[in-house]
């Protein structure tokens, strides 16, 4: 029994120690965001803000057209999520419920595309979108999402492989055509994994920096991530607004994660089994 108590002590110490590493940076930026300018640059450091200035958030928001950036970020996030859900569910359905020529070869190709480094395709894509007249619009960040994403297709396919074949036979007997079987029976079944890919997509698109950096130029087209980074460049020393915006930007993905935590854990386990 004594060893077990020791063991538990060690486990808890490690849990707490790692929690400091993972949680403390969040706490520290919140504390910084609520300080006054002079408190931030005091040494020895003051830990807690004196005035808890929540107005810092409003000031930071008004320092740049962040409402505009927010709207852009939301537009991209919502539209890509819709695009991914429609396209990936269709593609995964095709790959998992049918036998067809070249199926395995195509699927291996799909997996292989996950290995392509971003910079190989980025340069020609930039030129291609330039040719389409899409540079400095939100299109390059939205439209590709309507053509599926290998990783999400793979996740959905793994899920669909576990759904018994009898289901579509039954639907067929009831007179449903292939598309009806997909949309009326399989889409509802895929609710859990579709939620997972929606959340994964929201996280990655909301946080994306390189895509917007390369494709967008005008300030009015900026996303939150770009606005935040621009802030860093222009007002190198205005640490308070930077921290405030950082916190505001973190909140939506954190909420999305907390909502979908269960799906994320289950979805990842489903994918690697």
């Amino acid at each position, binding site marked *: 029994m004594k060893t077990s108590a020791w063991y538990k002590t060690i*486990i808890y110490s490690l849990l707490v120690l790692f929690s400091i590493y993972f949680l403390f940076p969040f706490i520290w930026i919140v504390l910084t965001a609520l300080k006054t300018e002079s408190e931030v640059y005091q040494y020895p450091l003051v830990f807690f803000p004196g005035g808890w200035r929540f107005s810092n958030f409003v000031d930071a928001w008004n320092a740049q057209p962040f409402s505009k950036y927010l709207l852009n970020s939301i537009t991209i996030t919502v539209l890509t999520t819709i695009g991914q859900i429609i396209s990936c569910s269709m593609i995964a*359905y095709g790959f998992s419920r*049918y036998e067809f020529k070249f199926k395995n070869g195509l*699927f291996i190709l799909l997996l292989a595309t996950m290995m392509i480094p971003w910079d190989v395709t980025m340069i*020609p894509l930039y*030129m291609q979108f330039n040719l389409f007249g899409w540079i400095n619009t939100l299109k390059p960040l939205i439209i590709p999402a*309507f053509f599926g994403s290998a990783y999400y297709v793979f996740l959905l396919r793994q899920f669909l492989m576990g759904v018994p074949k009898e289901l579509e036979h039954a639907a067929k007997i009831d007179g449903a055509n292939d598309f009806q079987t997909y949309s009326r029976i399989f889409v509802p079944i895929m609710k859990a994994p579709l939620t997972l890919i929606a959340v994964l997509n929201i996280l990655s698109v909301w946080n994306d920096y*390189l895509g917007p950096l390369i494709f967008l130029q005008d300030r009015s087209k900026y996303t939150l991530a770009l606005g935040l980074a621009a802030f860093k460049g222009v007002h190198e020393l205005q640490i308070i607004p930077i921290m405030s915006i950082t916190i505001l930007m973190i909140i939506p993905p954190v909420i999305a994660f907390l909502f979908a935590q269960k799906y994320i854990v289950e979805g990842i386990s489903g994918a690697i089994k």
Partner: protein
Amino acid sequence: MEQAAKSYKRARKLAKWTPYLFISPWIVGILLFTVGPLVFSLIMSFFNWPVTSKPKFIGLGNYSKMFTDDPQFYKSLWITLKFAIFYVPLSLGISLILALLITQNVKGVKIFRTIFYLPAVVSGVAVSIIWGWIFNTKYGILNYALSLLGIEGPKWLVDPNSAIISIVIASAWGVGTMMLIFYTNIKGISPDLYESAAIDGAGPFRQFWSITLPLITPTLFFNLITSTISALQQLTLVLLLTNGGPLKSTYFYGLFVYNNAFKHHKLGYASANAWFMFIIILLLTALIFRSSSVWVFYENEVKNKPARGGKGK
């Protein structure tokens, strides 16, 4: 009768195309956004391709310049390699330890799981700002805390000697996804194995070495590869935390390619740079394919395949 046969035939013909219809978005997408650009990028890598004037075919010129006439190429490669050597074992180690911790049967473990995963949902921009502030030489909390312990902290991002380590620390903050992959694997191990080991008198460490570790090797290898690939492609954090400095000590390969393309506008050269990295990644992936037990979904594929000759013509 004949009519029915005809429409049946037509339906059969249509049915043959149905699966392709379902996967058609992907086929169009891959041609438009992956294969096309990939081929074009390969072509570009054989050209001197400035933005302003006409491209000129130079054969393997870009590649030979890269290997013989650009010291920055080797420097960036070495910096990236150094980063990977620090980052990969560290991120694997931390995420495995975390996964083991959150599979322990202790109270509040779900809260810890959430805390450990949380940074993984934060963007590169936010991560760079948070850690930039923590590492701040003058007002950073890290060196202040160290000073309270009587230690003079390094200058983190400002000192070429510690800049890479700083980026490793900031990157390792986001190991949550890797942790979850280990976690679900460990959770899937049958408790019977541990029970019988415990009866045989095996302690927790012995159980880890003899049961957990061997059983998670496929996941370990999977995480090793993904972690290596992401280390080789590290860009956002570097761009925002140090932008290659100080004294080019963090001029990562990703930044080298990015600057060649979008700052120096040497599109052909940057394409050659990118293809070189692609080949390295392909070689690494070849390692995965060679060990079939590692790509677990591959096993599934074989299992779910119908018996040969059963269907078709």
